[in-house]
């Protein structure tokens, strides 16, 4: 059982070592694809196991639960790992044609696999300090990927990304220290009961807000998102895509985990704060996107705005809202990574991501236009694509809860999302190319075309499937939300059925 849980972490690490050894030849990139495929298979095995058996947990090194490091997978963790596998494989295939040899020799594929390992580790760990370690693994790999190539814009964006993320890391670390001082445990399942016994609940809220800030920086929520639009448009397209798909979502996942499992002692305060954050995140993100004039920069700001929807689901904290949040997470990762991949193809054949310098793609590359339309409409929430159901569930949850203002905000932000998507559509696809060239997909070699377009097509088909047959996905999200709101199964899986807590309490 422990192998099933550890495999999605071990496989990318092993692949990273191999890919580093073979970084000078073409083997490296194929190892990366193979490793990602193996990870996807491992994640699907884990998923079926969780679907059959409920929450599964394994103690690393056979140390019993609150003392050792626990790996634990409930439905949310499992689905996040599966999505990591899907996007990981898609971007690894895309990188075959996108990443040049120089970056490969500098160790692109090894860093990429370490990043995937860090992301999976963060999703699967059941220990707070271990979560910090996985964040660091993920961070250091992302630092490397972000500045690989070393252009001036990359270094500039890198400075902002690195410094602000380090601040958040330190906030996270201090929060861990203070929480341990108060409860005497770092095991998340153990903390669930240990926080009830804290002498001074006010201090607990302070620590909760520290965690909120730390994960808020990672998730790029309202006052803390400035590093994201400064850096995400600078590296190679495949790096942008995997960052856009996965990294901020690790922050959202951690917020959901912490604020459903541990910090539920004062929901009136913490979750109201999250609600305000969600509203401002949606609005500022979409307004920022409206002001941009570059394919990737528009998409970067849209990450921020979409994060707001997921936080909204967490902030409302009703069963339906959490269903929406989980559904949104899954849908968004696929759609957002895909849009960045489309931007990469557009740059490849039209020469730029600046919307003033490209155009005419609809006329000369209609297939690409179709592949853009699907994720773009899904992002904006057009029926019958996946984004529609995600937004529908969230807005319904807000209305049921009496949050008419936040529901209106969510709808208006959806409208403004359509505005930016039409802007990209109009300027990149409809307008004639300013330099008079006719960008076509046949200008790519057939090998490049297959590597670039097949992941986009597969992700687009996934978006359509989720949109056309939402029932099983919503049911899954319902089960997952139920687990989040009733963490007894999670706690029992980690600590054993008798639920013994070894927390020493406060002194």
């Amino acid at each position, binding site marked *: 059982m422990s192998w099933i849980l550890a495999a999605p972490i071990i496989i990318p690490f092993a692949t990273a070592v191999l890919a580093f050894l073979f970084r000078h030849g073409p083997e490296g990139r194929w190892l990366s694809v193979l490793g990602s495929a193996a990870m996807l298979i491992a994640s699907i095995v884990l998923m079926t196991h969780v679907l059959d058996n409920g929450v599964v947990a394994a103690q690393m090194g056979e140390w019993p639960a609150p003392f050792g490091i626990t790996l634990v997978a409930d439905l949310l963790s499992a689905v996040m790992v599966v999505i990591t596998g899907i996007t990981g494989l898609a971007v690894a295939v895309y990188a075959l044609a996108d990443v040049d040899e120089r970056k490969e020799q500098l160790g692109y594929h090894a860093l990429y696999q370490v990043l995937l390992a860090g992301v999976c580790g963060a999703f699967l760990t059941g220990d707070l300090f271990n979560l910090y370690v996985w964040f660091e693994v993920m961070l250091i790999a992302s630092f490397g990927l972000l500045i690989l190539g070393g252009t001036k814009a990359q*270094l*500039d964006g*890198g*400075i902002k990304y*690195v410094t602000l993320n380090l601040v958040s890391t330190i906030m996270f670390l201090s929060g*861990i*220290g203070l929480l341990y001082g108060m409860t005497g445990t770092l095991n998340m399942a153990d903390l669930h009961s240990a926080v009830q016994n804290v002498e001074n609940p006010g201090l607990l809220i302070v620590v909760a807000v520290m965690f909120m800030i730390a994960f808020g920086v990672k998730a790029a929520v309202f006052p803390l998102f400035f590093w994201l639009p400064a*850096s995400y448009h600078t590296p190679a397209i495949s790096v942008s895509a995997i960052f856009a798909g996965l990294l901020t979502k690790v922050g959202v996942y951690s917020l959901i985990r912490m604020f459903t499992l541990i910090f539920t002692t004062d929901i009136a305060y913490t979750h109201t704060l999250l609600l305000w954050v969600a509203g401002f995140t949606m609005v500022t993100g979409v307004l920022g996107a409206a002001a941009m004039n570059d394919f990737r920069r528009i998409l970067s700001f849209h990450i921020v705005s979409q994060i707001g929807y997921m936080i909204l689901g967490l902030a409302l904290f009703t069963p339906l809202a959490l269903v929406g949040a989980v559904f949104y997470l899954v849908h968004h990762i696929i759609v957002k990574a895909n849009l960045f991949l489309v931007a990469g193809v557009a740059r490849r054949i039209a020469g730029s991501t600046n919307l003033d310098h490209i155009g005419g793609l609809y006329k000369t590359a209609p297939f690409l236009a179709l592949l853009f339309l699907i994720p773009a409409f899904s992002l904006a929430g057009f029926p019958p694509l996946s984004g529609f159901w995600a937004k529908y569930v969230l807005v319904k949850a807000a209305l049921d809860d009496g949050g008419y203002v936040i529901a209106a905000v969510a709808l208006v932000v959806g409208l403004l999302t359509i505005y930016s998507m039409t802007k990209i559509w109009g300027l990149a696809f409809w307008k004639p190319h300013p330099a008079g060239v006719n960008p076509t997909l046949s200008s790519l070699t057939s090998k490049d075309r297959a590597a670039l377009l097949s992941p986009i097509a597969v992700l687009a088909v996934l978006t359509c499937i989720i949109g056309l047959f939402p029932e099983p996905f919503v049911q899954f999200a319902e089960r997952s939300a139920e687990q989040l709101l009733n963490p007894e199964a999670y706690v029992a899986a980690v600590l054993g059925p008798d639920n013994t807590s070894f927390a020493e309490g406060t002194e």
Partner: protein
Amino acid sequence: MELLVAIMVGALVAASVHLMLARNVLRFLFGLILISNAANLTIFVAGRLTPETPPLIPDGADAPMVDVANALPQALVLTAIVIGFGLFAFALMLVYRTYQNLGTLNSDEMRLAEPIEDDTAPVASKSYIAEGKP
């Protein structure tokens, strides 16, 4: 003892915030190093400080006889120091390469990734390059 370390943590955080508010990226980095040490000390204090009482369990007993420091936070601090060292080595190299390539350490002048698009001139500010040199 705990109070003393707590005051020290406060002083470190104050100094680091002062440094991090500077436009010079190198100063920011120094602030970051200070605040990370403050965080490490916080964890250290969280596990109690008991000078001259080693956390040893005598033969035949299951728990320490007297109140001793918790060894776990100290292990956590060690991990955090090692990770932090790696990150700061990276960050320092990044700042150095940025200085080489962009010719500035002033964060206001680092606008390459997000160029100012309108016609208004960038906010004039004194350069920190000269100040940064010995």
